């Protein structure tokens, strides 16, 4: 192994690379948080396109009553994969991409606390995403070709349809039954209620879903542990917790939510896997014995509890990073520090804490009894208080500021306005008699799209515009950006606002079609038109990215004149981020250094005076000068972790381990004495990689 041979040199013997080395291997073995951020971001964006395509198919199907673009089975698969993808493969990894990019820079650190663990998170995430999407990879083309065949038949009479049919029924490999995996797309909904997921009612598809989510859980937890330690332990000197940028706070608290919420779903899925592979009966109230049903002793309610004990904290895992991003963006474009910083921190913490005590609001209609219902309804309403505080503070930050509506700011303000709508319908759900009407109707669909799209996605898109120059050294085009925003905003509201009406009119979610008499046609057409606007907006964004990539501009360290440490270093940052770790004396250190350092009086409380004196003695450590110093600093070298291929190998091992269980099925036997050999290989690879990792010098 190359890096063992590599001596631990404590002298500047190796030349410092001017630019980051490139090439495929450098990406596969990278432990650099900025590169891992790019990997996460690109992967998540690809899944955003896949999930978006699935959404478009759903909308196409619902455009008119009694439509038949996809059948009911495919429809179930589409909404299941759309939801699962958007939550686990888009919003979460995009947030993690920003954690990776921004947090070490904001803290004034050279990397995260455990760089290889960070690489491991990414590769494991990719493994889980692949497991979930293998069936989709085969099924989506089939869906499209079939649609094309149907369209052809409609326009030109019969002929092609039969050809298409035979094409799909023909597959040259006899051990596969038809197209490989295409019939295994998960179809049970993103919260996978038992007993639908039991063997009695489902096929192999649930295994893809359950194993994929377990692997994704490992990836999320590994990343979250890493960020908690990084934030607690790698802050620049002088950066107390209450001087830490608010996005780092959001990351810290989101990570705590991840490590405390994911165990519940992981165990729930382990139990499900045992139910499916091991003959247990955790979620099975009945068994089929010799053709008769007998009481088994399992309880579908157990799944619902465990799922939502994870599930509600999960929605805060999806929104808190977005809140953190907006809290960074709004002050910069209002030219004012964040209003009520401390209260914002407490509000995030309160939301996260209360978030563990409201899960039953997803189960009001199960007849769980008056006491739990009342208690959880009250707790749910309580959450609206800290949430409202945040909205107020954003408004107050903008109040009296000199506002500039860049694209990033538009998206941030977009979040504030759209999230309020989603939050209000959330409080409506908390009123139990009302929720009994809303539950499983399009009203709930409207609610969670206002919080997830109007909330999380808006903030993440805004953050892409905000941080793009930091990553790539180029500004995204603002004119195209504004077009992007307005198309998204318009399309989003056209799509999802009518769903409130549809839901109140009684349209249930998750039905593949509706009748002509229902009267739901009109708003469904509007919603589909809105979806096309959103699709157009994504195209505009892609064009913007391509155009920017071709442009020759170069931006300085701080194009937005922002106040936190990530803007002190060049864009894109050097591999080691900070040659000189700045001393921190204030929250928005750059603004302080630039605008009011001279007014600083000595003798301030909380050790500030000492820090200021220290700063006076070491003027080179002022954050504002870091980038200039970079240029003149003499040759030297900085301790950085070696790249490593063990994270990648671990990811491959985990993938094979799960994949072996999936292909060892009646259609595709690959076993040896009953042991799936692929899983065996994966297990051996995983264990050897863990050992290799442990004995590899961290360098």
């Amino acid at each position, binding site marked *: 192994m190359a890096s063992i041979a590599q001596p631990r040199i*404590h002298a500047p013997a190796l030349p410092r690379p001017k630019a980051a080395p490139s090439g495929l291997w450098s990406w596969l073995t990278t432990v650099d948080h900025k590169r891992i951020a790019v990997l996460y971001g690109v992967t998540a964006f690809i899944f955003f396109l896949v999930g978006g395509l699935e959404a478009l198919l759903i909308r196409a199907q619902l455009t008119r009553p009694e439509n038949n673009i996809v059948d009911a089975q495919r429809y179930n698969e589409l909404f299941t994969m759309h939801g699962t993808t958007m939550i686990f493969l888009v919003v979460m990894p995009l947030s993690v991409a920003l954690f990776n990019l921004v947090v070490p820079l904001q803290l004034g650190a050279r990397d*995260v606390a455990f760089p290889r663990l960070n690489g491991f998170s990414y590769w494991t995430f990719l493994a889980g995403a692949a497991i979930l999407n293998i069936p989709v990879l085969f099924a989506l083309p089939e869906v499209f070709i079939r649609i094309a065949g149907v369209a052809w038949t409609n326009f030109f009479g019969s002929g092609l349809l039969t050809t298409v049919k035979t094409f799909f029924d023909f597959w040259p490999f006899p051990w596969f039954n038809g197209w490989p995996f295409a019939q295994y797309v998960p179809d049970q909904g993103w919260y996978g209620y038992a007993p639908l997921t039991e063997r009695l009612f489902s096929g192999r598809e649930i295994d893809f879903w359950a194993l994929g989510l377990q692997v994704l859980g490992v990836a999320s937890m590994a990343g979250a*542990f890493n960020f908690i330690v*990084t934030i607690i332990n790698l802050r620049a000197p002088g950066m107390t917790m209450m001087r830490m940028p608010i996005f780092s706070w959001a990351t810290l608290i989101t990570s705590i939510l991840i490590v405390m919420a994911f165990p519940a779903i992981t165990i729930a899925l382990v139990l499900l896997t045992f139910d499916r592979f091991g003959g247990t009966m955790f979620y099975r109230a009945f068994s089929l014995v010799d053709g008769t049903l007998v009481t088994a002793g*399992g309880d579908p309610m157990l799944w619902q509890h465990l799922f939502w004990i994870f599930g509600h904290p999960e929605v805060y895992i999806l929104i808190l990073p977005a809140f953190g991003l907006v809290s960074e963006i709004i002050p910069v474009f209002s030219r004012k520090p964040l209003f009520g910083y401390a209260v914002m921190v407490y509000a995030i913490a309160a939301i996260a804490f209360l978030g563990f005590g409201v899960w039953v609001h997803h189960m009001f209609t199960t007849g769980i009894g008056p006491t739990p219902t009342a208690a959880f309804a009250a707790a749910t309403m309580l959450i609206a208080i800290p949430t409202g505080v945040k909205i107020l503070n954003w408004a107050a930050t903008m109040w009296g500021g000199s506002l500039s509506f860049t694209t990033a700011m538009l998206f941030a303000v977009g979040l504030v306005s759209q999230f309020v709508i989603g939050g209000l319908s959330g409080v409506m759900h908390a009123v139990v008699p009302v929720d009994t009407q809303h539950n499983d109707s399009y009203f709930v669909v409207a609610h969670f799209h206002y919080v997830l799209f109007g909330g999380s996605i808006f903030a993440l898109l805004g953050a892409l515009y905000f941080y793009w120059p930091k990553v790539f050294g180029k500004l995204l085009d603002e004119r195209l950006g504004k077009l992007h925003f307005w198309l998204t905003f318009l399309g989003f509201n056209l799509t999802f606002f009518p769903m409130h009406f549809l839901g109140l009119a009684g349209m249930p979610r998750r039905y593949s079609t509706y009748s002509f008499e229902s009267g739901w046609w009109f708003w469904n057409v509007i919603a589909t038109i809105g979806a096309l606007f959103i699709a157009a907006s994504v195209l505009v964004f892609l064009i913007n990215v391509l155009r920017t990539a071709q442009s020759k501009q170069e931006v300085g360290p701080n194009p937005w004149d922002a106040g936190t440490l990530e803007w002190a270093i060049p864009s894109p940052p050097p591999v080691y981020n900070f040659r000189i770790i700045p001393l921190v004396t204030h929250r928005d250190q750059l603004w302080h250094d630039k605008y009011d350092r001279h007014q600083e009086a000595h003798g301030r409380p909380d050790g500030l005076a000492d820090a200021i004196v220290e700063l006076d003695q070491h003027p080179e450590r002022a954050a504002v000068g870091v980038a200039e110093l970079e240029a003149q600093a003499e040759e030297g070298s900085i*301790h*950085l*972790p070696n*790249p490593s291929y063990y994270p990648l190998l671990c990811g491959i091992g985990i993938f094979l381990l799960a994949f072996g269980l999936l292909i060892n099925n009646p259609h595709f036997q690959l076993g040896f004495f009953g042991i799936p050999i692929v899983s065996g290989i994966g297990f051996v690879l995983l264990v050897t990689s863990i050992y290799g*990792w442990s004995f590899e010098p961290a360098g």
Partner: protein
Amino acid sequence: MATATAIELELETAHGAGHDGHDDHGHADHPPTSTGLNSRKMLMWLFLASDCMFFGTLISTYISTRNRSIELGTPPYPNEIFDIPYTSVSAFVLLMSSLTMVLALSAIQRGDNRGLRIWIAATALLGAIFVGGQFFEFTSFAHEGLTLSSNIFGSSFYVLTGFHGAHVTIGVAWLMSLLFVSLRGGLPPEHAADVEIAGLYWHFVDIVWIVIFTLVYLIPYADGPEGAVEAVPEAFLRVLTIGERFLTALPI
């Protein structure tokens, strides 16, 4: 691979890149951190906090169906199948392995290599005895008809205790690796943190068994001796009922 972005220098390693894994830089002190605390040890404590939730989920699953196999009349029943003296011995073995573990840590901190190896080996051995004991317990239960699919008790019992057994097994493998490293001379006193972190994991596995031993094995089951029936839920529910009555009495 050896695309060495790695370039080293004393300047500011402090807040520099991470230091995960087995750093053999040979400095006794971990790189200075904002809190002064060792990052890897912090990682272990966080993992244990999260592992509370893992085991909490499994144990609650077990408790939520604790008496159900008896109520439904689907044997084998827990109170008939458990061999309390046998399990007490293995619980005792695991408990004592915590002592040997902490003695191993104390040995490495004093620079006593021989003691370190002896106590680590003893801990691994006790752990192996526990796992072996669990294996025989499972086999004998299986002979009496208790399987994963025999009833809900079999399902939840095997998965809970098996998950714990897997933790112990991983711990034994970890300790053996440490022993191996120590025999190769790779565990000087500066690396006491390596042993300390493994020890935290080990003790945690032990305390989980303390909880399981009481909640799964010792607390009597539904048709057990009178008076003890479901005493915990009973007491808990009584409190809740009082609360509920109070609430319904409110003039709202």
